[in-house]
């Protein structure tokens, strides 16, 4: 398992168990609260209700309403309290019901949390974690299905993560709680029920480090979040045709692990970027430009391909919704074209 490569960061690396992505996140929050009394949870309906996607579950019964706090239906107000708490020494973990609603809290995230350390000359920091359920595929329509990570990746002062596996979801959340600066974690809604090996106890996954999920010699496929799984499925299909795709899981959008990407493209000479967010001005655009500007440029043997979400609001119709974001067959076709010089 590729996840084993992260084991060195484990303080207590007990036997792995099979947990869902949601369970892994819940466990990470519980461990963080047990380890550090400053850690507490905030969000709409995260208490008795257990969260919009049941991620906080029964944590309110274990830690009480003082540490698992329901907030009013005001993302801006809740985020403002979380930023203030972080500035004054607490370590809040703030949950949005849908990442789309972060638009309501933009002022606190972009103009306050991201800038406090800089504007106050390092006198304070904002050790805030925000969890944002994201992505399409649940039939939740245009206002509840977006992938907005690139918005926040554009803001200096923020860190933006996209865990793709239960293992990374737990390890990255625990790393985010330790981080002195605001960290936004985009959790894909379709991944919540996905299962995977998760060790017991405390461990962290380093922020800003991509992971080669599958090595390959012919083409580098850079993906994040649920697209990692689609890329891996595509790579399996392509292997049957003799095309060996290297699949890289970004894990972190900001900071971006340029070294891993550059080294990979120098080996494979081709790059396909797969991301669910809108193609234009998205994560794949940044990865493409990073490669084009780097020493890997002189190794490119085919045009870089961006496979991103359609430039439209996400449709409610399930077939159209599916068509608006990259699917396995799209990745297969794009990689095939890149390798067989049909781009």
């Amino acid at each position, binding site marked *: 398992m590729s996840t084993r490569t992260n084991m060195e960061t484990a303080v207590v690396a007990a036997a792995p168990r099979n947990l869902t992505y949601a369970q892994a996140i819940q466990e990470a929050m519980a461990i963080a609260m047990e380890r550090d009394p400053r850690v507490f949870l905030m969000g709409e309906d995260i208490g008795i209700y257990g969260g919009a996607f049941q991620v906080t579950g029964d944590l309110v019964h274990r830690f009480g309403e003082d540490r698992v706090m329901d907030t009013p239906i005001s993302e801006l107000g809740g985020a403002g309290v979380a930023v203030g708490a972080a500035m004054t020494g607490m370590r809040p973990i703030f949950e949005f019901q849908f990442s789309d609603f972060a638009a309501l809290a933009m002022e606190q995230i972009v103009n306050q949390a991201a800038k406090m350390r800089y504007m106050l000359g390092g006198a304070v920091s904002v050790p805030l974690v925000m969890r944002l359920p994201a992505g399409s595929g649940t039939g939740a329509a245009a206002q509840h299905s977006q992938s907005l990570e690139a918005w926040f990746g554009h803001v200096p002062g923020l860190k933006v993560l996209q865990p793709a596996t239960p293992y990374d979801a737990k390890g990255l959340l625990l790393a985010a709680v330790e981080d002195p600066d605001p960290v936004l974690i985009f959790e894909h809604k379709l991944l919540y029920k996905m299962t995977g090996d998760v060790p017991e106890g405390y461990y962290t996954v380093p922020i800003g480090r991509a992971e080669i999920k599958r090595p390959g010699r012919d083409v580098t496929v850079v993906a994040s979040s649920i697209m990692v799984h689609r890329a891996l499925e595509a790579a399996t299909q392509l292997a049957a045709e003799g095309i060996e795709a290297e699949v890289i899981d970004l894990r972190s959008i900001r900071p971006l692990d340029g070294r891993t990407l550059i080294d990979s493209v120098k080996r494979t*000479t081709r790059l396909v970027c797969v991301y669910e967010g809108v193609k234009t001005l998205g994560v794949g655009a940044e990865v493409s430009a990073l490669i084009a500007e780097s020493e890997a440029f*002189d*190794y490119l*043997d085919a045009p870089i391909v961006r496979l991103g979400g359609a430039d439209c609001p996400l449709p409610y119709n399930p077939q159209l919704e599916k068509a608006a974001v990259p699917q396995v067959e799209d990745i297969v076709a794009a990689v095939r074209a890149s390798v067989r010089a*049909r781009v």
Partner: protein
Amino acid sequence: MPTEVILPRVDMDMTAGKIVRWYVDEGAEVKKGALLFDLETSKAAMEIEAPASGVLRGVVPVTDEEIPVGQVVGWIYGPDEVYEPAVAAVPVKQSAGAPAKSTGGAQFDAQQTVQSVVVGTGVAATPLARRLARERGIDLSALAGSGVRGRIQGGDVPRPAPLWKPAPQTGTVAESRAVHRVWLRTGAGVPTVMLHGFGSELDSWRPLVIAAPAAGPVLAVDLPAHGKSVPISSSNLAGLADAVAGALAEEGVTSGHLLGHSLGGAVATLLAARAEFAARSLLLISSGGLGSEIKGAFIDGFLAAQTAESLRPVLAMAVADPERLPRDFIAASLRPRQREGYLAGLTALAATLFPNRQQAFSIRDRLGALSMPKRLIFGSEDGIIPPTHASGLAGSVGVHLFPGIGHLPQVEALQDVASIWLEVIRSVG
């Protein structure tokens, strides 16, 4: 195809030039033969005429940057040719009825794929293919691309011929020959014969051969008493030239370029003067035979050294900066010493060639009398042979004096020497 406007070579030594003024604006009509741009080289300024009639497109801007000879600096489009701006890779929509000349800004359409991948030199090639062609000295425009719309890809760039040609199975094997030689590169074209300096061997030429992949075949010779060649009885300069001439005759090489370093330079000059070998050009590096002085401590130290430790300071004299001594240089110089008779042969040779540690031979007069193109490369910091030997030669000998370089320009200024070698070869054709 639109007509390429290239930066022309207007004199022999020119490798690059600046465009100081365009007489025709981007997008304007130009007639064949009309003034197109002013070219400035290190030596002269020149007016360049349009190679065709049509609309001028894709001109490189006027800057202080030098542009290499042969680079495309613009295109002239005929009446039926559609211009597609390539620089920003912005696609141009072509309406079916009337192909637009695109006089206005290019229309932007994110969904349409890029129509043209023509960039830079006017050849469609991937960055990988461009890099490989650059490294291997191959002209991209001569290649056929296997990619989409003929795009040249990495796999389309031929690999250089193997450097080592196995010894022929017929005839005598190399070991039994008095004068050992190896084709460092085979292939078509006029060969270059390479002669190393005192104490060296033919393998020392490999980096230079690799650095000039387009320079054609190379036959490198171990001088008598050097490398794998046996000593000869008449070990004066003429004797060395005789031995090499014999080896060339055995190889069937009757004509070629001569490239010699130090002692090998003097031998090459004698060879160039001989009737049975038609020398096309003569390139001498830090050549011997141009004056009497030579660093005695180098020859004595080289012959006396038994270990890497004692050899290191001796070899360091040969370079301006000891850091530039290649890592395997000392080991390579020590290796032949294990062979019986090697040092004795070399010592005897030195006694004849450098009695009292002076050069006992001169090629100065002969050099001026030779009719083929002649070049001499020296390093201004040469500690073995004084670079002042490069002065006072016949005016027909082109002299390159590299500042801050010692006795081994082919090591210390490898790329420059490779360029000069290529230049000489190409100037002869």
